[in-house]
């Protein structure tokens, strides 16, 4: 426990990291209270379309061009964005760790094959690849999330590989081999915990990018239209962008704040986990 406490103190010493954590908690709170504040379906018709924010006390953030409550969509959209962020990031990180760990630990031919595969993914612009996947497999929420995860792993794989390359020849790993320990156990139980901190920090970048990818997809109206996501709202607002700009701007700010919060938390974790920065 004292180790955890020391970590928390190191984290909170950085004001930017504290702000990030506060924003992230606020967004999570929005997601959790969405049903309580806005019990109705956020995609149902609520009133006259295109009412400006503040014009009608019933709709604090106004209504969009289909007459749906923007505030309700923002609250419910927080769920979708966080869900996409978490699930897609988990998929990307798991694929990345497995590929990076195997490549880094075994080296040689295994490394060559896996790294050429990683490079193949990296040379394709991942948004383009995402468009291809969505146009082939459809734009249901689950396919979108999986597709985002599948295009986001290469950087994690490279990072994990680099950590493994430096750790695999450490004497403690040799000691494990000397005890007769199997490869799987050495990779996942002994080396991985030591390689994890930078990967966890990088996961925050993956999460921010995943949220942005979904918004970009929705802006092109290629995301799942049956869920209240922030990206969908921006895409809808595109038609009235010149006059009723708030329809796109409000969810835009929500995305900005979320990505900022996740990045700040990632930065804060990095500073707290990196012992070299201690005492600066």
């Amino acid at each position, binding site marked *: 426990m004292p180790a955890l406490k020391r970590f928390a103190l190191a984290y909170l010493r950085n004001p930017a990291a504290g702000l990030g954590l506060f924003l992230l908690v606020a967004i999570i709170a929005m997601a959790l209270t969405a049903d309580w504040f806005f019990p109705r379906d956020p995609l149902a018709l609520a009133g006259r379309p295109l009412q400006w924010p503040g014009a009608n006390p019933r709709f604090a953030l106004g209504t969009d061009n289909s007459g749906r409550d923007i505030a309700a969509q923002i609250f419910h959209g927080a769920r979708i964005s966080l869900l996409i962020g978490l699930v897609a990031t988990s998929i990307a990180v798991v694929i990345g760790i497995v590929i990076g760990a195997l490549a880094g630990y075994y080296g040689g031919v295994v490394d060559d094959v896996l790294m050429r595969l990683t490079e193949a993914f990296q040379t394709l612009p991942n948004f383009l690849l995402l468009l291809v996947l969505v146009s082939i497999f459809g734009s249901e929420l689950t396919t979108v999330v999986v597709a985002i995860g599948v295009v986001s792993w290469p950087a994690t794989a490279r990072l994990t590989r680099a950590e493994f390359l430096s750790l695999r020849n450490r*004497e*403690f790993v040799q000691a*494990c081999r*000397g*005890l*007769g320990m199997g490869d799987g156990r050495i990779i996942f139980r*002994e080396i991985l915990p*030591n390689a994890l901190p930078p990967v966890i920090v990088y996961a925050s970048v993956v999460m921010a990018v995943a949220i942005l990818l979904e918004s970009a997809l929705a802006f092109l109206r290629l995301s799942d239209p049956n869920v209240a996501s922030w990206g969908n709202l921006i895409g809808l607002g595109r038609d009235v962008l010149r006059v009723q700009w708030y329809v796109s701007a409000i969810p835009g700010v929500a995305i900005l704040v979320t990505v900022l919060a996740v990045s700040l938390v990632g930065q804060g974790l990095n500073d707290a986990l990196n012992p070299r920065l201690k005492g600066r």
Partner: protein
Amino acid sequence: MSAVLSLQGLTVALPSGADRPEALRQVSLDLHAGEILCVVGESGSGKSMMASAIMRLLPGNVRISGGSILFEGKDLASANEATMRALRGARIAMVFQEPMTALNPLRSIGDQIAEMFRIHTSLSNAEIEARMLALLDEVRIPHPAEAARAFPHELSGGQRQRAMIAMALALDPVVLIADEPTTALDVTTQAQILALIRDLQQRKGTAVLFITHDFGVVAEIADRVAVMQHGLVVEQGPARDVLHQPQHDYTKALIAAVPPLKAPAPRAISSESILVLEGVQKTYRSGGFFGRRRRETHAVRDVTLSLPKGGTLGVVGESGSGKSTLARCITRLVQADGGSIRLDGVDLLQLSKREARQAARRVQMVFQDPYGSLNPRRRAGELVAQGPMIHGMSRDAAMAKARELFSLVGLDPAAIERFPHEFSGGQRQRIGLARALAMEPEVLVADEPVSALDVSVQAQVLKLLAELRVRLGLSIVFITHDLRVAAQVCDLVAVMKDGEVVEHGPIAQVFEAPRHAYTKALLASVPGRGFGA
């Protein structure tokens, strides 16, 4: 003779939260012209901090809190930064432990030496070039003109250190501070560098402050000695007095811990062999695709040795001699290319992967680095219990065994709950030993198990190893570069050079009447040879 550099009551404060409030406490020392003063102490004694304080290059949160550093009529403790810049390099120069990191890897040696002149003098380029080449010649680097064009990685460790010394002496400083300048070097190179420092110091009359942990080096080079412990100078005086009639208990303990080079009377050892190596080979190949620019390094060539039951076979040699690769071949961490390694008649190299994993428990290894060899994220007890658990012991039984082993190696059994970073270097090495012993091995391969430890801790670990050897009937392959350590623990010794065993036999015989020229050179290079004998 008056002092050129004088520390008076120098106190250096550490930031709050350090293991002691002051790195240096009331240190008073005089350094005279034309003498070598050795400051000797174990890690954490504050000896390197003293060098940094004199150069005023202390880390950001460490500061001089009292006393004075008198040099050429100025007090360096309170001098301003501009004064210090003019002094550093020109009047007080420094040589560091690791020349590879102290040199800029992207600039040629000649360029870096010439920079000293460019900063501190207004000589013309042609003159600088001539002075630089003269310096390289003076530190006896072969082919000075070529060495000047070389980059640091293209020179050997010894040559790099010569270049560093050339740089330090470029402007004929009054004081040269050498912080463990030979610790990273092989013993034969170390002997050459020590002779060079001695020679230059006598010719130029430089005062040398020589920081070291090695009493052998002190005996070799010092005119006067200051012994440090926990930031205090506990004893100082002429080298002869301090080395042969030490007054302070700590000095006495340190000197007693230095292993003598003379082997003790031989033990009776069994005529039966437990481990027999025959024609063991290992070649590393590197290079591009399709055999272009392929390079082969013969790390181990045709090594034939045998380890008697209950005996200790020392393998000594300098870095790159292949001794560590040999250790890893025996423990099968590296796959040998040829030959046979027979344990009780069974050739380990012919075993399948599964059989080899089973056989792993019979041959166990102790590693050099007490920090790198323990997984920082596992508790000490788990590290020890891991081995037996892999081979089918229940967790409770394995933890009980770990507790037993902890008391066997002299650790508190309650400490099994702690993490590796909570132990000192010597204690970690004991954990590493307990981990190996948990497998109940017949053969223990120890790769430089004490070379990262302070001399007093080293003596304790060696004593423990000797006790366990008798108590558990262990046979040990002991890899070391330190001939003093080898003399104390080994029954038999094999001397390796460039992957080959050039000489082997009973330790007393090899050390007292070496036959091979290389063995003779190695023995002649041990610093302070007569000391401690």
